[in-house]
């Protein structure tokens, strides 16, 4: 089941890339499309940050992940590299679970 989802998602992502190169310019050059599409990742990534930090199944919870996110926010604000942001968050969660 996981394989099917992985491969379908890969095919969909490739089709979108190819569509941009292949479709007549008119469809994607529409101002509504040009304006809306860049907003989608902003909304989805923000929703992913929120749900993956505060959700446990169908419940909202406050646990070590919130502290890990707070550390990640600081790392992003001081413009740390990607790997440092992720490692700092993971380390925060690991350390807090020990204490």
């Amino acid at each position: 089941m996981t394989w099917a989802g992985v491969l379908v998602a890969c095919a969909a992502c490739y089709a979108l890339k190819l569509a941009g190169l292949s479709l007549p310019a008119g469809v994607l050059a529409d101002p509504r499309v040009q304006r809306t599409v860049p907003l989608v990742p902003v909304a989805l990534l923000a929703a992913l940050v929120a749900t993956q930090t505060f959700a446990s199944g169908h419940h909202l919870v406050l646990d070590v992940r919130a502290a890990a996110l707070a550390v990640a926010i600081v790392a992003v604000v001081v413009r740390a590299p990607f790997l440092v942001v992720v490692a700092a968050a993971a380390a925060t969660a690991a350390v807090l679970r020990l204490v």
Partner: protein
Amino acid sequence: MDSARKGVVRDALGIAIASGAYAISFGAISTTAGLSVLQTCALSVLMFTGASQFALVGIVGAGGSVWAGAATAALLGSRNALYGLRLSSILDRSGLKRLLAAHFVIDETTAMAIARESPAESRFAFWATGVALFAFWNLGTLIGALATHLVPDPKVLGLDAAPPAAFLALLAPRLRAREPMAIALAAAVVALVCLPFVPAGIPLLIVAVLVAIYGVVRTRP
């Protein structure tokens, strides 16, 4: 090779090495989420667009279905269609080369290609960045996946708490104005409010529909 092209190759390698480091975290997060090493590597070879890959494994890791993850990955990949549109005048319009070029249409290759003075230079920058990035992205993924695979319980390393940080790092460069900031906050609130009442992964699709409506309604004809 002239000095302009040497500069392009140097920049492409810099981007590729930085992405390789970021791919290590993808490999680690994916394996922690329960995907096999082979599935993790397949995502980097076949999907090859970072935010979508992180979304799929993040959702699976949080207990969502792989189909919710696949839908979110595709929605995040929609921006690549716009990059393809910008690149279509630069890249070959037909043939096998275009099918391969399509695979490399992502944030980094687009940014490198459109910043050039001639179509020939743009093509060179596109391919140099695409090939270097593909190599390091997949190498980093393999290293991250294998290293995590050897750890009996990745939770001890806090890796299960890493996905939100990865999403935040992908989001931050897109927040340089007031409107995206407001959209990000609204999307986070909407997703959390919906969460207790709908199946896993659905809050993300609700957010995607709402932002699409917002974008279309707010665009003046």
